[in-house]
């Protein structure tokens, strides 16, 4: 399904501003929306994404918590069950390990276990992405863990426009949603309309139209794929870039249609390649477009190593424009 929701925009803001606007607008619109997490209030998070929200909404709706991810995530699950719409901030995606029981066994299961009597309309915002020189415990992309669990929706925006529209849709959703922001994209600028809009969960977006090869990419890998597509264009290869935008619900049809059109597919994701998101997406494509594929589907993700602190080593662990370009060129036989 093509994205028909995109409104015209005559201004550009950063990815971080888009997140902040989405939160502020939803908090103005709905008094049950509130934020909690470590360093979210005065500090506005280490990435300054939430700067200014404390001043507008006060300490009761922008709550600084102790360093206690399991505790305040459980608090959010309970608040959501009683009618609030909490937005939990987990500073580094690596810390989601501490929230797993609350997310996997509580948030994801409550609606089912209560026979539909209770809902958990919460959002967990957290970060992902390497190459920030943050070392092995602050650089992982662990979104695949949540994709594996029924009952959770998982969102990976790749542009300021998508970030704002998807976060607003996530806050309004009646289910627990995990929202991953690549920390390397917070300064990325893009057109975002000032008017209210949402991007529905479960609708992929063709970020670039092409004929010869499809690059399916998530989050910041969409930017990498677009860069690689520009390099490929110089040698006469026309690459299509498809962004699923949400891992679940997943818009399988758009991925399969693109694969059928180009016959060649590379799937890119910054999470670990082994048993990762790329495996699921590649399987969807291989099953849906098998008789239209002219080459095996290739996956590119993070290497199976702790993300190194050494900059040259860290840069080598994740796909880059150049490695994607080379892989696509080989696949196209050029």
């Amino acid at each position, binding site marked *: 399904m093509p994205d028909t929701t995109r409104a015209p925009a005559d201004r550009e803001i950063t990815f971080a501003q888009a997140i902040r606007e989405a939160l502020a607008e939803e908090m103005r619109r709905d008094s049950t929306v509130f934020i909690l997490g470590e360093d979210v209030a005065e500090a506005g998070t280490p990435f300054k994404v939430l700067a200014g929200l404390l001043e507008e909404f006060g300490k009761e709706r922008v709550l600084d918590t102790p360093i206690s991810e399991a505790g305040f995530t459980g608090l959010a699950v309970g608040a959501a069950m009683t009618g609030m719409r909490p937005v939990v901030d987990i500073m580094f995606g690596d810390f989601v390990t501490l929230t797993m029981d609350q997310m996997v066994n509580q948030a994801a299961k409550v609606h089912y276990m209560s026979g539909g009597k209770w809902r958990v309309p919460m959002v967990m915002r957290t970060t992902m992405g390497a190459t920030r020189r943050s070392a092995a415990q602050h650089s992982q992309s662990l979104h695949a863990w949540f994709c594996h669990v029924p009952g959770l929706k998982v969102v990976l925006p790749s542009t300021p426009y998508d970030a704002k529209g998807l976060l607003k849709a996530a806050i309004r959703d009646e289910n627990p949603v995990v929202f991953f922001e690549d920390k390397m994209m917070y300064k990325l600028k893009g057109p975002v309309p000032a008017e209210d809009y949402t991007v529905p969960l479960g609708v992929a977006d063709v970020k670039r139209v092409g004929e010869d090869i499809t690059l399916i990419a998530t989050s910041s890998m969409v930017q990498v794929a677009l860069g690689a597509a520009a390099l490929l264009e110089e*040698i*006469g290869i026309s690459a299509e870039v498809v962004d699923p935008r949400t891992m679940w619900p997943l818009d399988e049809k758009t991925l399969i249609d693109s694969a059928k059109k180009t*016959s060649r597919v590379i799937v890119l994701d910054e999470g670990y*390649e082994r048993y990762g998101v790329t495996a699921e997406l590649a399987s969807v494509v291989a099953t849906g477009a*098998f*008789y*239209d*594929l*002219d*080459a095996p589907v*290739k996956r*590119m993700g993070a*290497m*199976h*190593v702790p993300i190194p602190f050494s900059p040259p080593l860290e840069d*080598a*662990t994740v796909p880059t424009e150049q*490695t994607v370009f*080379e*892989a696509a060129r*080989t*696949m196209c*036989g*050029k």
Partner: protein
Amino acid sequence: MAISVVMPALEMAQETGKLISWLKKEGESVAKGEPLLEIETDKAVMEIESPGDGVLAGIKVHAGTEVPVGRTIAWIVRPGEVPPAEEVTVESGRKTSTATTASAMSNAAPSNRPPASTTSTQAASAIKSSPKARRLASERGVNFAGVRGSGPGGEILASDILAAAESKPAAPPAEVGTGSPISRLMAERTTQSWTTVPHFFVVREVDAGALNEARQKLGLAIERSHQAKLTHTDLLVSLVARVLQKHPRINASWTSNGVRESAEINVGLAMAVEDGVVAPVVRNADKIELGEIAIQRRDLTERARTGKLRPADIANGTFTISNLGMYGVDAFTAIIIPPQAAILAVGTIADRVVPLDGHPAIRPMITLTLSSDHRVVDGARAAEFMRDLASAIGNPQL
């Protein structure tokens, strides 16, 4: 330890090599670097040197046999040592580059397993093809056996099936083992050229009087200085090369990115050999003097006649001349050798009655026919080249 002697891959796309002869006998000692055997590839006959010092043993393949590249065909052993009984296959070096990047670090732990690779014998036994290619083949009734794969590892892709479906009658029956490599190569290349290159032809009759005079005048001097006989072909190579300098679009090729003009002018000469035709190349023909062209042409002819052309002799031609004048042919059209954009077909020099200053005259005339690839050269460009070539032949400045 015994060293295996394998059938080498001398060219990028070579799949088999034919053993012409062993230059050493079983049990004879041989030094590393000494010529050990002669093989024939698709394009040339070559001597192969011994990979080590020792005694030649365990010869598995005899003269005249065609062998997949990478296969062990004999052993070099120490005196008294028995060659290993087991067949060992060696990587032919034709791997795709994709397998090595992302997994490099995770595979750093030592492993006893040999690296995963496709040996040439396995590659030859299974036809690899994409799912899309298989679907198209069954829809269009194309037989895989006759299709050559263009994928990174030789896989049959959708585009190969579509091309085969369009030129079905041309797909040759797979009769492996009949015909020499040269005749098979000729069949493949001419079919590919004729069915994929849009040919067109420009014909021009030229007075060869001045050419005859130049040959007589310069012939003696060159025979004395270079010990080489000067032929009409040599004169044409030199004249064509100099005219090509002014016509870079004729000295060009069609690529996936459009027209590419060649940096050098290397003139190929079509030569008949026992079971086909080869086109060895006079390199930088626009830069070397006539005597040097005569020597190179003589040596190339000799190597072609004896089947000893080296791969370098036939590589990188940018334009070709095919001369059938010695057979008394008046004129003919030639098939372009891709990726070159043009080939000049030269007929015999014969006395003809032609008008000269309003009167009939008898003049030695020659008919030249240029075949051009219309993707690279249009009619006007071809005509301009032929006009300048005719003028150079009419007044050879050599």
